[in-house]
């Protein structure tokens, strides 16, 4: 059994509580840093998607997990970040750097002209613009709760998708935009290179640290207060409106940064890549990962991104594997053949991915509502308390519906 004796307040404030944690995280970082040198380029590419999804997962955790504002519209924020990237890139702005760029405007009375704006690279502009739009979305969302807020975010996402498809002068509509390789301070980082992998990993680590800093300060506590009891939060002096808008803005800004990386990863973006289904995938990240901590966002991202390779493996290898096992178990060649064929037909049926997604979500919510991180915490507790772990430690109490309409 482990017990940590605290002697100073700083020990509670620290990000890493004790040396064991530090070593574990350093090992993890080391493994992730060494991964591209050891893995195939396909897996390396999937890891990049994991990092991007994890960044959005963290953003969604801030808004939904910590502030309690459900959102099914984060694909729209990702799209705004991605399109800002593509648009500014076409204006000659680098990923990171400093300088000026010009917007061509056609104002009603003043006629055509150029508006010169400063930039520190389109990466930060993507975050900034998406954050501003997030704040704008936050204002009408102030009075909406629960299901109404979800629908409002869905509506917002649809409208953004439509705008992206119609505003052809900027976005090329449904034809899509090509995104060229990343250029930062004169250095070019093509997307399939190891350096892009490290860039995404670095962004993820910085975003996680920033969020952890946020959550251990007054603003983070205010977010949690808003989630749990708005009335009490008001009485404690928390300006609900201001903090909700801040939460939306921060969440959107981080998603915008992820959008910039996403645009580079895909190297071609079009409006129909940012649909409601993508927003649902992001929410699945935090539900499967567990909406209790940032670890959940990362675990969920790993899971969601790895479903595809898993399915490919199932389609290709499992039928023959199952037939092989059947053979070994002595069921006879005919039966093994039939097994392989039926598994093949199930695996190649269109829509299997959707069915598996659906079943996985339902199973997680039914049996593991705390998600993968929750399961990890339970396992850790088992080892920490060994051999005194009580089997009923996490036995779920029967829950009853209590209306959430009165908050």
């Amino acid at each position: 059994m482990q017990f940590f004796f605290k002697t100073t307040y700083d020990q509670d404030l620290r990000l890493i509580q004790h040396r064991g944690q530090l070593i574990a995280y350093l090992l993890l970082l080391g493994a992730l840093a060494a991964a591209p040198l050891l893995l195939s380029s396909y897996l390396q590419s999937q890891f990049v998607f994991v990092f991007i999804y994890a960044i959005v997962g963290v953003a969604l955790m801030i808004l939904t997990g910590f502030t309690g504002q459900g959102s099914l519209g984060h694909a729209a924020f990702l799209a705004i970040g991605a399109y800002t990237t593509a648009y500014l890139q076409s204006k000659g702005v680098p990923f990171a750097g400093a300088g000026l760029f010009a917007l061509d405007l056609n104002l009603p009375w003043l006629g055509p002209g150029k508006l010169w704006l400063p930039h520190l690279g389109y990466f930060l502009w993507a975050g900034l613009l998406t954050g501003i739009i997030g704040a704008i979305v936050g204002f009408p969302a102030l009075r909406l709760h629960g299901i109404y807020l979800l629908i409002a975010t869905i509506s917002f996402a649809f409208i953004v998708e439509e705008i992206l498809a119609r505003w052809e002068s900027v976005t090329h509509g449904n034809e899509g935009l090509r995104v060229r390789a990343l250029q930062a301070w004169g250095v070019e980082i093509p997307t399939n290179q190891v350096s892009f992998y490290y860039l995404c990993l670095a962004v993820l680590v910085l975003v996680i640290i920033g969020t952890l800093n946020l959550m251990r300060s007054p603003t983070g506590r205010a977010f949690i207060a808003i989630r749990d009891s708005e009335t009490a939060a008001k009485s404690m002096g928390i300006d609900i409106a201001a903090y909700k808008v801040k939460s939306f803005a921060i969440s959107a800004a981080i998603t915008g940064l992820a959008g910039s990386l996403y645009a580079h990863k895909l190297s071609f973006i079009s409006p129909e890549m940012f649909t409601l289904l993508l927003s649902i995938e992001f929410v699945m990240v935090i539900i499967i990962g567990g909406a209790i901590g940032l670890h959940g966002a990362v675990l969920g991202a790993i899971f969601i991104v790895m479903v595809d390779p898993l399915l490919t493996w199932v389609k290709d290898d499992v039928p023959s594997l199952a037939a092989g096992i059947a053979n070994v178990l002595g069921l006879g060649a005919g039966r093994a053949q039939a097994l392989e064929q039926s598994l093949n037909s199930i695996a190649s049926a269109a829509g299997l991915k959707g069915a598996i997604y659906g079943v996985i979500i339902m199973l997680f919510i039914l049996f593991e509502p705390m998600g993968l991180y929750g399961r990890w915490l339970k396992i850790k507790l088992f080892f920490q308390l060994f051999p005194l772990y009580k089997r009923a430690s996490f036995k779920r109490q029967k829950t009853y519906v209590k209306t959430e309409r009165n908050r």
Partner: protein
Amino acid sequence: MSFFRVDGVSLQFGGLKAVDNVSFAVNEGEIFTIIGPNGAGKTSIFNLISRLYDPSAGHLYFGDRDITALPAHTIAKMGIARTFQNIELFENATLLANLLVGRHCHTRTRLWQELLFLPTVKRAERQHRAKVEEVIDLLELQAYREKIISGLPYGVRKVTELARALCSEPKLILLDEPSSGLNVEETDDMSFWIRDIKNELGITVLMVEHDMTLVNRVSDRVLALNYGRVLASGTPAEVQSHPDVIAAYLGT
């Protein structure tokens, strides 16, 4: 200019007058109790002071400031804290986190500083924690610091409500039925703490209570309400012997 004044305040919900032309003044450093049967409008007055409701008539004054139209979140910063009758704690957070939220009106750090967790923020966090620990020591909540609220017994949650209100270092504290649901021993502790709040911390207490023993033990002045209207006001002895109050509330 009195410390806190309620001036002809009324609150109407459609046809129902919850508070009907109530006026009273609270002096600095005293313990002022409001009594009355259920539905008399006591908690409604508290909600008016906390600015969770808007009065349909009348004014509220804190010092020389008219607080009648201020938004709810500005009240804490002015130095008014409150507890809730039906506990409004943050159920999924630890007790420590709840108390730290009570310090929110003293936040001096900005968002960008917090994102980087600059030394300013760290120092501020240590100060907040030190202040919270003072309150924990006063109310003897040390054993429950890291426990999640939803797992705590009712008596402890009541005390946590009080602790959270104290953490904001208020000048005026509103206690809504502090002893409801507490047993005799816990009510004794509560009466000692209320007197400590007045004597040691110098905080003025405005209280709603049903337990007349507690009222007699700690109050300096009492106000009796019924159907939203004032029945009597004065020292505990005066109010308790007032015929209207006996008829409406206390019985013989």
